[in-house]
């Protein structure tokens, strides 16, 4: 579905991505793990067209994404749930969701997806008239995911959805990710919480200072000694 080949990104003098290859097949959960500053968010920003790459290609359903603007990429069915939630705090929950569907024109479809999101997150329905900024962190994360779903994505990319959430909520968020996946959405998940993300992922990549150092099936990576040592905190 999405194929990244030899992607290089420079920020000023910093070489943030050094020729990475990532393959995202349809209907899979792919995860990208790595420490702070490894280049995870840069990868997502490059896919969305928010950061210009200096070399390499990003192919989506057979065509290059590099020539498109963010707006067109959203219309093509790729959406980013940004790091740190970034909901619109002074707008109501419902307005936030409507803005998620900004790139769409089909009113009936939008209303239907709104119902779908409310079904997935009943708590959002209860609070549809509340200002989004007044909700708890977990609810805001749910809103961020719900807002992402409103654009009817084929590929949903999430940047650290578990950041700053209580363990119980992290569990809930991950079960929701699985549920969204079951409904036929391909997912690219970026996480520092390597254990939780590798458990649900079909395939994983480990990113270190701009290069992919390891890749493999989620379960294989979970048992990999190096991953264990560096990311799962199970030193022997």
């Amino acid at each position, binding site marked *: 579905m999405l194929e990244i080949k030899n992607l290089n990104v420079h920020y000023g003098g910093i070489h943030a991505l050094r020729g990475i290859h990532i393959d995202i097949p349809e209907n899979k959960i792919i995860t990208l793990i790595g420490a702070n500053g490894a280049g995870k968010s840069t990868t997502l920003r490059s896919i*969305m067209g928010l950061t210009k790459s200096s070399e390499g290609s990003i192919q989506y359903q057979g065509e290059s994404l590099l020539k498109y603007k963010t*707006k067109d990429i*959203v219309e093509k069915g790729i959406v980013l749930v940004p790091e740190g939630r970034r909901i619109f*705090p002074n707008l109501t929950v419902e*307005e936030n969701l409507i803005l998620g569907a*900004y*790139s769409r024109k089909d009113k009936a479809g939008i209303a239907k997806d709104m119902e779908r999101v409310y079904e997935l997150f009943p708590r959002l329905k209860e609070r549809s008239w509340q200002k989004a900024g007044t909700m708890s962190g977990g609810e805001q994360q749910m809103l961020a995911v719900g807002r992402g779903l409103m*654009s009817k994505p084929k590929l949903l990319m999430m940047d650290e959805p578990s950041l700053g959430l209580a363990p119980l909520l992290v569990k809930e968020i991950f079960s929701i990710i699985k549920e969204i996946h079951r409904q036929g959405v391909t997912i690219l998940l970026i996480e520092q919480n390597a254990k939780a993300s590798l458990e649900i992922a079909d395939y994983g990549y480990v990113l270190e200072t701009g290069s992919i150092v390891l890749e493999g099936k989620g379960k294989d990576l979970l048992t990999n000694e190096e991953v264990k040592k560096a990311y799962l905190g199970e030193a022997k």
Partner: protein
Amino acid sequence: MKNTKRILNIISIIALIGLLFIFEQTFDSYKMRIVNLCGIYVILGLSLNLINGFTGLFSLGHAGFMAVGAYTAGLLTLSPAMKQMNFFMKPIVPFLAEVEWSFLPALIMAGLVTALIGFLIGAPALKLRDDYLAIATLGFGEIIRVVFTNTQSLTNGALGLKGLPTHTNIWWTWGIAFITILFMVFLIKGSYGKAFKAIREDEIAAEAMGISLFKHKVMAFTMGAFLAGVGGALLGNLLGTIDPNMFRFTLTFNILLIVVLGGIGSITGTVISAVVVTVAMEYLRVLDEAINLGFIRIEGIPGMRMVVFSLLLMIVILFYQNGLMGSNEFTWDWFLEKKFLKKSGKKEVKQ
């Protein structure tokens, strides 16, 4: 419910027209000028609120935009004979010497020219954010004023333009204010308004939703400039004389005061505070004059009312951070609920 609202809308429009008619019949020219200024400040307040309040772009170039609008309309409506009298230092540029437009096309032209200037300033300046944008737009506003002071054959320089036809009356000001309110209501309700608010709330998230930041920012800025130009044009043809020094930063400050007092991001708030501030500015002139308390005479200090206004602004910012209305709007739903909830409640009890 929809019908009730429609009837209420029609009733309030008729009431407004009736009120303006009564004003026109009973008020002297001094009071009429205040009513006119109220209308103009409603337009100006809304235009600044569109840029600062709804889209979150901290722009301080409004006085410059008003100057462009006022001069455009002034030069277009001034009769050729008056132009010759005005431009005695240097003759006016030939292409303007013989034109004399009627008021409506001149107003529209004033808006369009200002929108163009707004676009030309906005396109590069809107790459900046927050206080940097404020400094840049403030600078552009001042540049416009200085340029107008020095283009003798186009704007008559520091002498300004005198003897402008005073076309502006309450029907023009309040008519255009009314159209502006309607325009704003529909704009903010629509998808553009949502995009503006999203940009105000969080630019990165808005961009990730597929909202083009540059397009919407420039659009809001240009539309705000258009309205500011129309407001400036109305002001010029109300006063009958304009000069570059009218359009100093204090003018922008007055409009900003209206927006902040009314509530950043509230159309209703801006309308209310535009009227209140304009009327108060006039009636607080008492403070500038000498006050005789019988036993003691306090000498008048010119500019005292501005001190009072600054204090008022500080109090508002300290205690009512969101202004009069916050980002809330007056709606018939709210009105009906507040006023008639008790009545309907009683009825239910009886039944």
